[in-house]
């Protein structure tokens, strides 16, 4: 029979450029270039691209990145988590209750919070894989349950829904700086002295650089993106994540422990939400019952802009990180550009739609979907 020894005449040769472009992140890359060109043209003189401005949108983007990495891996494994936003509020509140109200050492408060939240993630996953219900519904329930507790617990104990004093409670703690500190202060001082970045001209911080370090939040964001990308593309577990989302039955037939993979991805999503929450309460010094509202959708939007398929089995962590960057730059950039802030949603909607159309087109070419 057809013993084809040379190339198949029906396989079109792909040019190197075209091949390099045909990747899940393309939508994210195009979007990133587009928003930077846009704000470079319309907001260049607004201070968006000086040290302070860059730090401003970088921090916001890093926040999105942290939760987008978790949402991305979970989505590729075929599931959603709508409880991310509530988990952020809940985790922050737990730290405040343990560390301030109960007066536990901050490191114990942080560790216990991580354990509780990751356990909630595992519970989400367990219910989803055992009942076979859509994760959309299960985590929607968790969204309400966690938000309810986040309001109920501080109201019952402290008779208020915002608990402060976290920064004071964290003073001298060994674990808290891992989430709340800034690194690289000497470099920024030097940059300030050299006049490369601006320094304060009056007040009690006169002479100090306006940007005095890189917050640990950004280190976490980068670390999680690198870890997520490595896990997905370089490890055997990554192949299982793709397989679980691509076709759970086919994956099971080949011996992939689909349920365990999904539960672990729910736990990782909860872990990311908790990292976000700890960084946030360390920065603000307080926990509020309304923190993290709508964050689950922002995470999902970033992931989808980044080229992941909503139904699972396809996507990229780098893409999701770019989606988060686009999100952060647009949100802060419109403020710098002096645009009415309500237009943020219009802009975001347009970008989301454009990115998804482009991503769908690319994905069809890569995977031969019809």
């Amino acid at each position, binding site marked *: *029979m*057809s*013993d*084809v020894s*040379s*190339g*198949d005449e029906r*396989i079109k040769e*792909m040019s190197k450029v075209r091949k390099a472009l045909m990747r899940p992140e393309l939508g994210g890359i195009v979007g990133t270039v587009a928003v930077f060109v846009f704000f470079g043209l319309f907001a260049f003189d607004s201070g968006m691209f000086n040290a302070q401005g860059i730090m401003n949108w970088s921090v916001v983007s890093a926040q999105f990145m942290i939760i987008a990495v978790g949402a991305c891996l979970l989505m590729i494994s075929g599931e959603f988590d709508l409880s991310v936003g509530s988990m952020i509020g809940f985790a922050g509140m737990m730290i405040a209750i343990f560390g301030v109200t109960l007066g536990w050492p901050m490191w114990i408060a942080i560790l216990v919070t991580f354990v509780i939240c990751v356990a909630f993630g595992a519970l989400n996953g367990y219910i989803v894989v055992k009942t076979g219900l859509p994760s959309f519904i299960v985590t929607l329930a968790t969204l309400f349950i966690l938000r309810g507790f986040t309001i109920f617990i501080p109201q019952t104990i402290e008779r208020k829904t915002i608990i402060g004093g976290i920064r004071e409670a964290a003073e001298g703690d060994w674990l808290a700086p891992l989430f709340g500190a800034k690194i690289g202060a000497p470099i920024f001082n030097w940059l300030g002295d050299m006049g490369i970045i601006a320094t304060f001209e009056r007040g009690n911080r006169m002479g100090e650089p306006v940007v005095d370090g890189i917050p640990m939040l950004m280190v976490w964001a980068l670390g999680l993106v690198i870890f997520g990308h490595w896990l997905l593309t*370089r*490890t*055997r577990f*990554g*192949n*299982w994540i*793709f*397989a679980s989302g*691509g*076709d759970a039955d*086919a*994956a099971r*037939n*080949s*011996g*992939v422990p689909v349920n365990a993979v999904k539960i672990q991805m729910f736990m990782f999503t909860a872990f990311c939400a908790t990292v976000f929450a700890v960084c946030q309460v360390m920065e603000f010094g307080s926990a509020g019952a309304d923190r993290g509202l709508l964050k689950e959708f922002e995470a999902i939007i970033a992931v989808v802009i980044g080229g992941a*398929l909503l139904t699972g*089995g*396809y996507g990229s962590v780098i893409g999701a990180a770019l989606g988060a960057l686009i999100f952060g730059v647009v949100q802060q950039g419109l403020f710098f550009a002096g645009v009415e802030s309500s237009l943020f949603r219009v802009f975001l909607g347009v970008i989301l739609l454009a990115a998804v159309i482009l991503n769908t087109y690319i994905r069809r070419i*890569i*995977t*031969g*979907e019809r």
Partner: protein
Amino acid sequence: MNDPIIQMKNIQKHFGSVIALAGVSVDIRGGECHCLLGDNGAGKSTFIKTMSGVHKPTSGEIIFEGKPMNFTRPRDAIEAGIATVHQHLAMIPLMSVSRNFFMGNEPIKKFGPIRLFDHDHANEITMREMKKMGINLRGPDQAVGTLSGGERQTVAIARAVHFGAKVLILDEPTSALGVRQTSNVLATIDKVRKQGIAVVFITHNVRHAMAVGDRFTVLNRGQTHGTAMKGEITPEELQDLMAGGQELATLEGSLGGTV
């Protein structure tokens, strides 16, 4: 011929009050393509599921490489070397050929305690195995979704063979394929057989069976009328056995022998 790899002796399978298999005996030998024919509802699926460990027979004996076997899970059968390629197969269209090929059996490259997916190794083997089967890939990262139905079957077969299948069960691999794709799959079956692997080819298409089969067993209403060697039986006889004779003979007359 050599000794049978697997012997199914007087297998019965009852689902509640329904008798799906009423005592079926078949033996499968290495290097042969054993066709299992039967119309819808004849018990083909139940029979191969018994062989691959999905169902436990109600009574009867399975002897695998001379020893009685008691598969409790599909995993046991896979580990023993009985691989099933399903009609709607275990391929994930969104993933690359190489990722699919090694799904669940990923090669590992160790860096101290860190265990990585050895992509180079996986890609190399995938390309080599695909070439052997006569499929030219653009690259190992080409998605399975871009392959035709016949090529996907071939990837699934090549995968089972690579991971050491001694018995390869193909559940209607040609039923949804076009002419050219079907002949590709039949050619693949021939290649696999020549490597000494026992192929169990389930089909209800007599022509496909005659093209590659060495021996033929017809199932009808949960029973078998024995096994015929190639050359001992004509396509018409097979067709009759499958349909239970009479009825189809009448129908065939009115359709002018086209069934």
